[in-house]
């Protein structure tokens, strides 16, 4: 909003003040947005930090926040832990040599030849010294247990097959709604919008029964996750239809005069102009399959070898992992959608919204 800059009839000095204010305001605004985004995304930073943090450090309130390890000093073939030891000459960094309850023996790493120094006090009250050192152990632990390549492959197969069915039918239906005069078409379209709002719970019981051993016996297969998409998705049809409608019909008319049939017009006139929105729809569906947990829980709980990534990682969490390894899981599961978003940001966010608002 560009308002109230340079109001008329001001003296030179006040114009200067105004410019100073202008600059300060701009700086403040950008600083505010920067700080907001830093705070807003800080949990992601915590996740990354925790992923590289050695075991036990994450839950230890005395350890530093950043991934680090205790500083050690090799002495007589052993690795001694270095502590901050208060002495008469101030705090010294000494390596603990022989711990005991009342007094302990330390080695001065700067002068190891001097031999053990006796220090009176309880060594357990001393603070160890840490050094910044990220570790990949959590990634190793996580990948050793979670069969990530398998889940990734499963997710991609399900996403790809259902994507093909979804795009074919959603594009066809959106085309039908945007270009044909159908008696009662308006009511059908209202019905389509109404189905967007139907809570999934209400259809869950009967569809579960349909897919269960009592009828189709699809439990333990990918079919319940794939087949429904071959009938299109109401919300994506809506998105596509809004976009198809915004394409002027002149070109279709010209193509039709040239003798092109409806299918030919869809393929050679409508689709080439709708590549961004079709890609957006494809991506939205990919995100849906990637994040899908509920149907996996229902239908794939008994088949660990078929599970999709979000569900498998979420399911494994309770038995196997340390908190740090869980962070690795969180990081690895979210990184793919985020990369896809950044690659497609140019049109993804725009096509998702601009067409919607026309409702």
């Amino acid at each position, binding site marked *: 909003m560009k308002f109230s800059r340079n109001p008329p009839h001001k003296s030179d000095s006040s114009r200067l003040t105004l410019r100073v204010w202008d600059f300060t305001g701009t700086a403040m605004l950008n600083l505010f947005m920067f700080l907001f985004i830093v705070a807003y995304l800080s949990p992601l930073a915590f996740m990354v930090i925790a992923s590289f943090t050695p075991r036990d450090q994450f839950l230890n309130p005395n350890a530093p926040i950043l991934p680090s390890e205790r500083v050690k000093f090799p002495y007589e073939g052993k690795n001694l832990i270095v502590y901050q030891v208060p002495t008469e000459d101030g705090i010294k960094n000494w390596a603990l040599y022989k711990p005991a309850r009342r007094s302990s023996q330390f080695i001065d790493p700067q002068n190891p030849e001097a031999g053990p120094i006796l220090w009176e006090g309880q060594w357990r009250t001393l603070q160890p010294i840490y050094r910044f050192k990220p570790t990949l152990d959590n990634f190793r632990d996580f990948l050793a247990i979670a069969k990530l390549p398998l889940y990734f492959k499963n997710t991609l197969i399900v996403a790809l097959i259902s994507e093909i069915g979804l795009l074919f039918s959603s594009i066809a239906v959106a085309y039908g709604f945007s270009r044909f005069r159908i008696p009662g078409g308006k009511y059908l379209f209202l019905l389509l*919008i109404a189905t967007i709002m139907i809570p999934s719970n209400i259809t869950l019981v009967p569809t579960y029964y349909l897919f269960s051993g009592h009828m189709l016996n699809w439990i333990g297969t990918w079919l319940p996750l794939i087949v429904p998409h071959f009938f299109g998705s109401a919300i994506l049809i809506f998105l596509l239809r809004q976009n198809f409608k915004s394409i002027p019909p002149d070109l279709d008319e010209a193509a039709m005069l040239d003798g092109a049939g409806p299918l030919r017009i869809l393929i050679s006139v409508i689709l080439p102009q709708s590549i961004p929105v079709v890609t957006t729809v494809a991506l939205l569906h990919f995100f849906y399959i990637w994040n899908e947990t509920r149907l996996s829980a229902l239908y794939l709980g008994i088949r660990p070898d078929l599970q999709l990534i979000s569900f498998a990682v979420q399911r494994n969490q309770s038995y196997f992992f340390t908190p740090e390894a869980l962070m690795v899981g969180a990081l690895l599961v979210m990184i793919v959608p985020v990369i896809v978003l950044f690659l497609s940001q140019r049109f993804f966010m725009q096509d998702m919204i601009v067409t919607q608002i026309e409702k």
Partner: protein
Amino acid sequence: MDIANQSGLWTKLKLAKPTRLQQEARIGLLFLAPWLIGFVLLKALPILAALVFSLTDFKMLSPETTKFIGLENYIRFFRDSEAGASLLGSLEYFLLTVPLEMVVALALAAIFTSERLKNKRISQTLIFMTSIIPSTSIFFIFLGSLQYAERLIFTPLNLPPIEGFDLLLPFMALWSIGPGFLIMYSAMQSVSREIYEAARVDGAGRIARFVYITLPMISPAIFFTLVINLTGAFGGAVLLDRGYILNFSLSPMEGYINATMFLDADLGYASALAWVTFAVMMALTVFLFRSAKHWVYFPEEDEQNEI
């Protein structure tokens, strides 16, 4: 009716022969066929089946003993205090998270319209990004952040320790503002400059312009965001679906229905509960659409070809 009238190309050229019109409708219906079949098989029939189930004592493990019990399941719902509490919990969830989400999205959108803001595209993507993070990740990210917040903020400031899951809802709400923010931002950008200019000449201040021009002009976007949030809160389809957190249900009613369905395997009662939720949601939607007349601004020309 206007769906076809606007595009109207088949009509314009072929209206002369009524059979052509029929043919056009037939081809159109052919294109709609996948959705129509899916609608009948996966929406209409299951909803009706759920209604029938809700009138029986259908148990997953013993379908053969099922018998018709009339409205007993619904009567049971009114006596079931846990179900009532869950339903209220879901409403509370909607009432708590949606205003938070909307206000933050609106404020951010307003800041984004400022020409002084730099690097808008990257900021926009970064703010939007959190809305596509899978719930699987969100849950752990949240738990991890609590740990760090405790150490960095709460312990040094001697604040009482955090009640873990109380913060999950606001956290998820704040991290879901992406679509709402984009909708409102693009709506604000399309408000005509001249109106602001005119108001400025008449002496309207910054805040007055926001309240009396921006808010009414983008009220359709606000309304739309409200509707999609309502839909999402009650388990309808959303554009960006994060998936579920399996061992922690954000919407208590949904958790309760799932427990009835899978732990008790009581499909009859679960169907009744789902129908009650559906009815409540429909009532809220109708209320929202009714109220729209009073506060949502629909430009004149849009009224004719509204959908």
